[in-house]
C-alpha cells in the first residue's frame, strides 16, 4: 500500500474524531496518541524515502500532471519528521496548559486541521493544492490565535489575520498568473517547462507575487509585522506550536519554489534573497535585544532566524541549501522548546516580563537546564545543533564569496547570544524581585509539562552529536533540490 498520504490522513481522522467525541479526557488522550501515531508514520515514511528515493502518490489514480500528485522527497520528509516531533511534544504539553481555557475540543479540532494543512503543504506537488493547504492552515491558525477572545488576542489576531490574508490573496493571484502562462499546476511539470524555456524570465513578475506571499508567511523583512504583533497574545501552547511550525512552512515553500522552477535570472533573485536575509537577521536580532517580555524576545528571534534560512537559499550552493535546511530543522526544535520553557516560567512566576521575575535557577534547577539547552542551541554553542547549522551556513557563505551577508550572520549570532543571556540573567540568575515574605505555595511542574521540553532538548543535543547523519540527510535534500531532474522524472514519468 502506498502510504504517502498518511501524513494527511491521520490528522484528518483525528480531526473528525475530535468533532464527534466531546469528552475532555478523551480529546486529550486521543490528541497524544494520535500525534504519536503521526510521528511513527513519518518515521516509517522516512525509512521509505531513504530506501526508495522520492515517493509519489497520484490522488484518485489520475496521472500527473492532471490529478493532484503528492510527493515526498528528502526535504519534505525532513520537515514532516521534525514537525511531527514538535506536534507530539505540543500535544503532551497542551494537556496541562490548556486547563484554563474551556475550549479543549475546539482547540483539538483546529489543532489537527492546522497539522492537516501543514502536512498537506509539505507533501503536495501541486501549486493550487498548496494554496488550499495554506488556507486550511491559515484558518485554523486564526481560530487558534483568537481562542479565548481577550482584547489582546483579538487585536493581535486582527493583525495576524489581515496581513496573512493579503499574503494568501497574492499567492492565489500568483497561481492564477502562473497557470495562465503555463497551463499547468503540477510543480514537476512547471519545473520541466520553465527550466527549458528561455522566455520563462517573463514569469518573474508572477514569481514576485509568490515571493511576497511566502515572505509574509515566513516573516522576512519587511513583511514580518504580523509576527511580533500577535505571537505573544495566545496561550503559550499555541504560540509554541506556531513558533515551531508556521513560519517554517513559508520557508519551505520558498525553498521549494525558488529551487524548482523560479530559477531564471538567478543573480537578481540571489541578491534579493541575500539582502533581505541579511536585513531580516539583523533587524530581528537587534529588535529582540530591546525587548523585556520573554515571548517578544523569542518572537523577534524567530524573524532573525528566518533570515538564516533564507540566506541558505540565497547562497544556492548545495552546501548553502543544506545549511539552510539544517538550520530550519534545528530551529524548529529549539524554538519550540524555548517557548515551552517560557510557558513553564510563566507557570512558576505568573509573569512573562523579565523585570518582574527572577531567581528561577534556585527555584527550579531543572527548568534552568531545560532553558539553557535550547537557548544555547539557538545561540550556536557547540556541540548543540545550532552550531553546526550556523557553521555550515557560514562556510557556504564564505566559500561562495558572500562576505557581507555572512558577516552579518556571524554578528547576529552575537545578538542572539545577548538576548538569550538576557533571559538567563534576568529570569534565572537575578534575585527574585518578589517579596520573599509572602512565599506562595510552591507550584510544581508536572511530568507532562516537563517531558516535551526534555525530549526536544535531547533532540537538540542529538542533532549536534549526530550532526554527521543529519548533515548527510540535509545534503541529500539539497542535492535533490539543486538537480530537480530526478524529481521531475519521478513525478511525471515513473508512475
Amino acid at each position, binding site marked *: 500500500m502506498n502510504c504517502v498520504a498518511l501524513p494527511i490522513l491521520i490528522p484528518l481522522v483525528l480531526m473528525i474524531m475530535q468533532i464527534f467525541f466531546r469528552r475532555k479526557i478523551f480529546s486529550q488522550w486521543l490528541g497524544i496518541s494520535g500525534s504519536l501515531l503521526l510521528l511513527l508514520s513519518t518515521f516509517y515514511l522516512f525509512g521509505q524515502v531513504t530506501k526508495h528515493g522520492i515517493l509519489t502518490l497520484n490522488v484518485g489514480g489520475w496521472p500527473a500532471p492532471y490529478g493532484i500528485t503528492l510527493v515526498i522527497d528528502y526535504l519534505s520528509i525532513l520537515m514532516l519528521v521534525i514537525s511531527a516531533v514538535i506536534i507530539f511534544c505540543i500535544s503532551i504539553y497542551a494537556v496541562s496548559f490548556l486547563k484554563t481555557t474551556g475550549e479543549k475540543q475546539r482547540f483539538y479540532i483546529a489543532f489537527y486541521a492546522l497539522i492537516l494543512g501543514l502536512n498537506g503543504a509539505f507533501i503536495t506537488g501541486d501549486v*493550487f493544492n498548496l*494554496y*488550499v493547504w495554506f*488556507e486550511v492552515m*491559515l*484558518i485554523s491558525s*486564526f*481560530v487558534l490565535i*483568537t481562542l479565548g*477572545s481577550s*482584547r*489582546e488576542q*483579538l*487585536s*493581535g*489576531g*486582527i*493583525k495576524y*489575520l*489581515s496581513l496573512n*490574508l*493579503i499574503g494568501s*490573496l497574492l499567492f*492565489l*493571484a500568483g*497561481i*492564477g*498568473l502562473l*497557470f*495562465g*502562462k503555463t497551463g499547468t499546476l503540477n510543480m514537476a511539470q512547471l519545473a520541466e517547462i520553465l527550466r527549458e524555456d528561455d522566455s520563462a524570465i517573463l514569469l518573474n513578475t508572477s514569481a514576485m507575487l509568490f515571493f511576497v506571499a511566502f515572505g509574509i508567511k515566513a516573516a522576512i523583512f519587511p513583511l514580518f509585522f504580523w509576527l*511580533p*504583533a*500577535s505571537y*505573544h*497574545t495566545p496561550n503559550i501552547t499555541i504560540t509554541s506550536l506556531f513558533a515551531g511550525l508556521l513560519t517554517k512552512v513559508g520557508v519551505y515553500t520558498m525553498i521549494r519554489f525558488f529551487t524548482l522552477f523560479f530559477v531564471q535570472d538567478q543573480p537578481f533573485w540571489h541578491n534579493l534573497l541575500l539582502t533581505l536575509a541579511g536585513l531580516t537577521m539583523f533587524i530581528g536580532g537587534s529588535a529582540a535585544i530591546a525587548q*523585556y*517580555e520573554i515571548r517578544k524576545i523569542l518572537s523577534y528571534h524567530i524573524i532573525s532566524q528566518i533570515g538564516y534560512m533564507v540566506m541558505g537559499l540565497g547562497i544556492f550552493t548545495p552546501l548553502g541549501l543544506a545549511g539552510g535546511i539544517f538550520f530550519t530543522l534545528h530551529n524548529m526544535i529549539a524554538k519550540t522548546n524555548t517557548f515551552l520553557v517560557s510557558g513553564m516560567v510563566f507557570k512558576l512566576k505568573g509573569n512573562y516580563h523579565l523585570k518582574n521575575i527572577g531567581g528561577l535557577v534556585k527555584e527550579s534547577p531543572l527548568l534552568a537546564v531545560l532553558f539553557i539547552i535550547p537557548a544555547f542551541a539557538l545561540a550556536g554553542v557547540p556541540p548543540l545543533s545550532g552550531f553546526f547549522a550556523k557553521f555550515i551556513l557560514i562556510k557556504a557563505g564564505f566559500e561562495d564569496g558572500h562576505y557581507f551577508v555572512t558577516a552579518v550572520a556571524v554578528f547576529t549570532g552575537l545578538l542572539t547570544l545577548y538576548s538569550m543571556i538576557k533571559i538567563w540573567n534576568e529570569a534565572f540568575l537575578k534575585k527574585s524581585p518578589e517579596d520573599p515574605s509572602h512565599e506562595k505555595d510552591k507550584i510544581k511542574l508536572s511530568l507532562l509539562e516537563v517531558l516535551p521540553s526534555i525530549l526536544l532538548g535531547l533532540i537538540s543535543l542529538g542533532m549536534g552529536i549526530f550532526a554527521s547523519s543529519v548533515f548527510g540527510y540535509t545534503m541529500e535534500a539539497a542535492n535533490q533540490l539543486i538537480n530537480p531532474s530526478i524529481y521531475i522524472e519521478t513525478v511525471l514519468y515513473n508512475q
Partner: protein
Amino acid sequence: MEVLIAILVGFLYAAGVYMILRRSIVKFIIGIILLSNATNLLVFLSAGLTAGSPAFLSDQVSSQQEFSDPLPQALVLTAVVIGLGIVVFTIALKYKFFEVTGADDLDQLKPTDNQK
C-alpha cells in the same frame, strides 16, 4: 474584452487596497471582499477567456466542440468558497473586536505591539 476585464481587475485591486488602508473596520472588510473578488477574477481571466459553451458533455461524445476551459472555473470556485469561509471569519473577528473594545478604529490595535 480581456483588456477591459484586466482593467476591471486592476480597478478592484486598487479599490480593495484603498479600502484596507482605511481605519474603519467595516471599510476594511469591504476591502478584503473587493480584493478577494479581484483575485478570483484575475485567476479566471489569466487562464484565458473563451466565450464558449459551458463544459457540459453530452452522451454523444464529440470532443471537437469548443468548450470553455473547466479547470480555471473549478479553481476559482474553490477559491470563492474558501474566500467565503475566511471573509465570514474576518467579519466575526472584527465584530468581536468591536464588541470588546467598542471602537471602529483599527488604530486602537496599536498597544499590543508597543507595550514594554
